[in-house]
C-alpha cells in the first residue's frame, strides 16, 4: 500500500449513500478516487447504524466508519435550492455519482440524476436498488434479509428442523456495493473512451442470486430444489447428505473428505488424510473399500457415506484446531478452521500479506487494524487507510473549489 501513484488518480466521485453506496465509494477511494460524501447537516443516518462503538465525544457506527475511510464530507440540505446548487456544482466536476435505495427514494434519485446529467453529460450515475430499475416492483419495501430471501439464498441455509436462516451480516447490501464499484468503473471506462456518460443500476436481488452458483441450473436440469442445510447438506446437487462442518476438540472445521466433486485436489487430500489416520492406527477397511472420490462419487448411498464419515468424524474429534490446521496446510488436506472474528485478526496468512493495515484516527481516538489491503496492484497500490470524515469537514474546501470552477469559466 502507498500514498504514491494510484489507479483512479483525478477521478472524482460524489456519494449520497447509506450502506451499499458507501461500500462502493470506499472501494473507489481505496483505488485512489477522490470521494466526496454529500450528507445532511449533522451527518447521514448511516452514521448511527448498529453496531455503535465508543469514539471520542460519543458513539458512531462501526459499519459507517469502516466503509467511509478516506473520503471527504460536504453537508448540504438537498431539499433546498441552495443544497441543490451545491450538488450541481459538485456533479459538474464529477466522473461518477453513486447512490443507494436506503438513502434516497427513486423519485429523489431521478430528480438529482436529471440535474447531474444536464450539468455533465459524461457523468456516470450509479444507483443500487433492491430489484434494479424500471418495473412494477420499484416501490416494494426491501431489506437485506428480504433480499437474501428473494435472491434464493436464504431458503438453502440452516438446519432442516428449523426455519431457513440468514447470514447474520448484511451480505446482500455489501456485495451490491462492491458490484456497483465495478459496474461504475466499467461505465467510467466507457465514458473515458467515448465521452458518453450513462446510468447503471445494480440489483441487490441479482447480486444475491450470483451467490447461489448452481441453483437455477439445478432446477432447470434436474427439477431439483436443493434443500437447506447447516452443518450437513446435499451439496452441489448431490443425491446424498454430506457433512461440511466437523466438530473437533476445541471448535469446528469445514471439510469435504469424500464424495461430490473436487477433482484431483480432493483425491490427494483424502490420501493425505488416510496417511495421517494410519499414523494414529486408524485403518478401518471402509476407508478404502471403494474409490470415494473417483467414478460414482456422486452416487454414493447415504448409508455408505455415513459409515465412512463416522470413522473420519471420530478421528477429527481427537484433534485440536491448531493440529488440524497445521497438518492440513503442510499436507494439502482440504480442510479449514471455522474462524471466529478474533481468529481472523490473528491469522498468520493475513499477517504475512499485510492484509490488515493500521488506521490512526486522532479525531475519534482510534488506533485499530482494518482489512483494507484487499488487492495487490504492482504499479498503483491501494491507499493506506485514512480516517472517515467528520460530517461537513470539507464543506468549506469544496465551496471554495466550486467558486474557483465558476470563476475559471
Amino acid at each position, binding site marked *: 500500500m502507498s500514498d504514491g501513484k494510484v489507479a483512479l488518480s483525478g477521478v472524482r466521485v460524489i456519494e449520497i449513500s447509506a450502506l451499499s453506496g458507501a461500500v462502493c465509494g470506499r472501494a473507489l477511494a481505496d483505488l485512489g478516487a477522490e470521494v466526496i460524501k454529500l450528507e445532511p447537516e449533522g451527518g447521514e443516518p448511516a452514521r448511527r447504524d448498529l453496531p455503535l462503538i465508543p469514539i471520542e465525544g460519543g458513539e458512531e457506527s462501526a459499519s459507517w466508519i469502516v466503509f467511509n475511510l478516506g473520503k471527504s464530507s460536504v453537508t448540504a440540505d438537498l431539499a433546498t435550492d441552495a443544497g441543490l446548487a451545491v450538488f450541481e456544482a459538485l456533479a459538474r466536476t464529477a466522473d461518477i455519482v453513486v447512490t443507494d435505495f436506503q438513502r434516497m427514494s427513486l423519485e429523489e434519485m431521478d430528480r438529482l440524476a436529471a440535474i447531474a446529467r444536464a450539468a455533465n453529460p459524461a457523468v456516470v450515475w450509479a444507483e443500487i436498488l433492491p430489484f434494479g430499475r424500471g*418495473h412494477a*416492483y420499484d416501490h416494494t419495501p426491501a431489506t437485506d434479509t428480504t433480499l437474501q430471501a428473494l435472491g434464493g439464498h436464504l431458503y438453502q441455509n440452516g438446519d432442516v428442523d428449523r426455519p431457513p*436462516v440468514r447470514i447474520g451480516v448484511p451480505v446482500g447490501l455489501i456485495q451490491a456495493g462492491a458490484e456497483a464499484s465495478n459496474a461504475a468503473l466499467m461505465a467510467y471506462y466507457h465514458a473515458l473512451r467515448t465521452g458518453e456518460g450513462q446510468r447503471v443500476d445494480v*440489483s441487490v436481488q441479482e447480486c444475491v442470486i450470483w451467490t447461489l452458483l448452481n441453483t437455477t441450473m439445478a432446477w*432447470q436440469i434436474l427439477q431439483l430444489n436443493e434443500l437447506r442445510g447447516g452443518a450437513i447438506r446435499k451439496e452441489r446437487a448431490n443425491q446424498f447428505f454430506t457433512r461440511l462442518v466437523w466438530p473437533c476438540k476445541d471448535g469446528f472445521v469445514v471439510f469435504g473428505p469424500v464424495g461430490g466433486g473436487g477433482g484431483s485436489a480432493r483425491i490427494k487430500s483424502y490420501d493425505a488424510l488416510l496417511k495421517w489416520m494410519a499414523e494414529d492406527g486408524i485403518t478401518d477397511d471402509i476407508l478404502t473399500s471403494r474409490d470415494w472420490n473417483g467414478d460414482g462419487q456422486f452416487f454414493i448411498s447415504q448409508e455408505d457415506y455415513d459409515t465412512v464419515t463416522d470413522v473420519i468424524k471420530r478421528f477429527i474429534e481427537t484433534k485440536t484446531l491448531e493440529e488440524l490446521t497445521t497438518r492440513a496446510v503442510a499436507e494439502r488436506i482440504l480442510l479449514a478452521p471455522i474462524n471466529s472474528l478474533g481468529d481472523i485478526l490473528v491469522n498468520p496468512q493475513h499477517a504475512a*500479506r499485510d492484509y490488515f493495515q493500521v488506521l490512526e484516527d486522532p479525531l475519534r481516538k482510534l488506533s485499530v487494524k482494518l482489512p483494507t489491503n484487499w488487492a495487490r496492484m504492482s504499479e498503483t497500490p491501494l491507499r493506506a487507510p485514512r480516517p472517515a470524515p467528520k460530517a461537513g469537514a470539507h464543506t468549506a474546501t469544496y465551496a471554495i473549489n466550486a467558486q474557483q470552477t465558476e470563476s475559471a469559466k
Partner: protein
Amino acid sequence: MSKGIFDGLKVCDFMWAAAGPITTKQLSDNGATVVKVESFKHPDSIRLGGPFIDNKPGINRSGFFADFHSSKLGMAVDMSHEDRLDIIRPLVEWADIVADSFRPGTMQKWGLGYEDLKKINPRIIVLSSSLHGATGPWSRHPGYGAQGAALAGIQHMTGWSDRPPATPKGAYSDSVSPRYSLTALMAALIHRERTGEGQFVELAQIEATVQLVAPQLLDLQVTGHEAQRSGNRKDGAIQHGVYRCTGDERWIVIECETEIQWRALRETLGAPERLDTARTIGPDSLDEAIAALTAPQDAFELSERLRAAGVPAAVAYKGSDLLEDPILEARDHFWPLHHEEMGTLKYNGPAYRFEKTPTVLRSASPRLGEHTEHVMTDLLGFSEADIAGFRDRGLLG
C-alpha cells in the same frame, strides 16, 4: 445494437472453478473477446461438478460450469507439453489481459509468471486470483469456497446460537471475490488507458470475503464484543424472523424496524392484542405468535399483503421460484442460450444494467476445445498446416 463496453478488448483466460470465470464472464458478456484456455488433460474442475444434463456426468454436460462461461471462446491445449509457449506466447502477444485463478506457482511453472508475460507483452494487465493469495505460508493450501468462507468468518455469523455454525449455500468466497477482483481489474484498465502502463493485480478470495465482516472486526477491537450467529434475530429490529406458511417448505421473512411497520404488521396479521402481548413477553414469544398466524396462510399472498401495508416481507424463494419471478422476468435476468450437448438453458445475466451499452450474453458455454481452430486461425493467424503440426506434436486437443 450498440456495442458492449469491452468491444475490442482481448482476454487470455486461464481462470477456472467459480471465482475466476465469474469475473471474466463480466468481460465476455460486455463484448470482450475472451479465450478460455483449458488444458485438455486437466480441464476446468467444475466441468466435473453437477448438475449434469440427464444426471449423467460428462465433460460438456455441467450446468454449474455452463453458467459462468457465456460468450466465451474455448480452446484446449496440453499445458504440460514442453512446447506450450509456441501457442500461448502468440496468445499473450494478442491479449490485453491475462487472467488466472490457479494455485499460486502454476503459471510460473509454465513460464507464464507476471515477469515472463511482461517480457512477451509489456502493456499486459495480469489478474491473478487465488483462495489464500499468491504469497504467505498458506498460499498453496488447497481449498474451495466453503473453506474460504469459513476462514473469512461467514460460517461464524451463520446459524443458530445453540447449534454448530452453518455453511451457507454455495462456495461463498467464490461469489464475493469476483466483485472485488473486477473492480481492481477495471482500475488497472483505466490506468492503462490513461498512461499506457500495464500491471499485475493479485487478489486473495478470502481477503475479499472478509470485507463482509469488517465492521464486526472493528467493533471487536474497540469494545471487546465479538459478534455471534443468532439465527434470524437482528439487533435493533422490533421483529425479524422467518416463519412457516402452507405448502411444501414455504417460508416467509417478516421484518419490522419501525413502530409504523409494527402497527401495520399487527393489523395485517389480524391479531393486534395477541401480538402486543407476545412482544411484551419477548422475542421467542413473538416469533411463536407470528408463526401461529402465518402457518395457515399462503406465503405469496401474505407477502403481497404485508408489502402493500409497508412491511418488508418476502417469500424465501426456491430455485424454481427464481425462474418464475415476475421481477426477474421484467428485468430479463435469464438468457436462454443453446448448447449442442446441453440444449437450451437459461443462463444468469448480470446484476447491473447499463443504460446505453447493454450487456449481451452472446453464446452458450464452449465445449472443451470448441473454438481451438477458430482462435488459432482467425485470432492468431496460424495456417492449417501450422495447426496440423501442433496436433501432430500433441499440443492441441
